[in-house]
């Protein structure tokens, strides 16, 4: 009796299984197509417009061509910077509160609120800031920063909480046993120990808000020139890409592509940085 002789049904099952594995591989290839297509077109259409002037000049009138997105880049940097100055300490504070004071009722409510906050569509955050600030003080870089801060807040808080929770309890107890007050344990032991991980969480949050468009549409609005102060409408890279893309002028569209290239390279570099930080951290841990 031959144990291993397949029946026709076994053949069918075997080849059907192979067929399905092929389908899975095919689906993976399909998922890869957009990434390749997007990268390819952004580089192809955006590369020519990149020059020193792109980073310093303001957009030229469409008929003249040329010009740059210096004002938008500066505006983005200022707004993202302000949002980070506000959002990082705020978010980290909330994250520390959630992980280090677990018995608190407020902590549970906070975690729930943060979860809800992550689900708010970013355009709704823009509307919130519009009514909170813009209605009273007009469009400004400050309003834009506030909107981005609200978007950044739950991301930073969650990553801080998750990272601090990875620290085993006995480390905290060891610190307390030295007679350190709790806040010293947090500031001098927990945060330095998880420093590189915390940084990656923050960097990813910054990358995320740097690409946000919707909440800036009616908070910082836009500006054809360099904004003179923080209470003026200020252009940002994503919003200006949007404006130029729907302008209908070839010259501005080409600027938009270059802007997208800059944005995507920024995001790519940030991700590479985060990866290398995590890689080094892991290696240090393994040693």
């Amino acid at each position: 009796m031959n144990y291993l002789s397949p029946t026709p049904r076994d053949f069918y099952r075997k080849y059907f299984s192979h067929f399905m594995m092929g389908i899975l591989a095919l689906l993976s290839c399909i998922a890869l197509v957009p990434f390749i297509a997007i990268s390819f077109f952004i580089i192809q259409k955006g590369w020519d417009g990149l020059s020193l002037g792109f980073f310093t000049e303001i957009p030229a009138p469409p008929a003249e061509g040329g010009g740059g997105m210096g004002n938008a880049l500066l505006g983005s940097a200022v707004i993202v910077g302000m949002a980070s100055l506000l959002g990082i300490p705020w978010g980290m504070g909330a994250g520390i509160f959630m992980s280090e004071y677990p018995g608190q009722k407020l902590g549970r409510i906070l975690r729930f609120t943060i979860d809800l906050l992550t689900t708010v569509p970013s355009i709704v955050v823009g509307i919130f800031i519009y009514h909170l600030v813009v209605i009273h003080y007009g469009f400004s870089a400050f309003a834009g920063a506030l909107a981005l801060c609200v978007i950044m807040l739950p991301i930073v808080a969650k990553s801080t909480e998750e990272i601090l929770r990875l620290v085993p309890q006995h480390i905290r107890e060891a610190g307390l046993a030295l007679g350190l007050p709790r806040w010293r344990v947090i500031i001098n032991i927990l945060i330095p120990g998880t420093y590189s991980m915390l940084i990656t969480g923050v960097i990813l949050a910054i990358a995320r808000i740097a690409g946000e468009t919707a909440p800036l549409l009616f908070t910082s609005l836009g500006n054809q020139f360099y904004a003179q102060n923080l209470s003026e409408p200020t252009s940002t890279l994503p919003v200006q890409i949007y404006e130029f893309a729907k302008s209908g002028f070839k010259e501005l569209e080409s600027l938009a592509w270059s802007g997208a290239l800059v944005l995507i390279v920024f995001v790519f570099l940030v991700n590479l940085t985060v990866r290398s930080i995590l890689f080094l951290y892991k290696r240090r841990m393994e040693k």
Partner: protein
Amino acid sequence: MKTDTVLLQIKNLKAYFSSTLVLKDISLDVSTNKVVALIGPSGCGKSTFIRCLNRMHEETPEAHVQGEVILNKQNIYAPSADPVLIRRKVGMVFQKPNPFPGMSIFDNVALGLRLLGIRKRSVLEEKVHSSLVQAALWNEVKNILKRPGTSLSGGQQQRLCIARTLATTPSVILMDEPTSALDPVSTMRIEELIRHLVQTVTVVIVTHNMQQASRISDNTAFLLNGELVEYEKTSRLFTNPSDPRTEQYITGRFG
């Protein structure tokens, strides 16, 4: 031992995890309708060894196998051999009882048959019945066949897993420390079951419990650091081991 028919012949088996050699050139014969126990300290390769006997080892990423395992004159590692067909003839019971989640007791046993294309309700019922009877579980579950398999107690779950394996009428059943997660009473029932099963199938069982090995097995193999130290009749291995390392292990010197 020589008069028995050899069912499973393992020749120069080597198993790797990526480039680490975990089984070093093992050869041994398993006779029909016998219980073979594998003992040895943890990490000695017992589990890897039985996982090589139904080609489960290769399901682990970066694991591979060299050598031959001959089941009834056919090498299961021959290029043309299909692991799916082999696993139907060489069943496996795992350390932790693992009924398929979300499936009823009946479906747990019937799945293997359904995969074989058996659709007729009466045939399925008959086979499920006989498998559960064989696994000494029928009386306990005959009225609750629709309940999820995970609702049973640990010992019952493990017998369900044995019934599930029996349903496809294997000639060999591999058991990887099947009682290590169970209480003593459930353990005893499984041991009785194994002695009973061996009338129809051949059992290769990994155990960390030497009393268990001596109670239920006909032959015992002692593995140490991926090497087969000794393979003997159980009665002989435990009373008069020929290798000093075996003696040290069974007298509790290490492991």
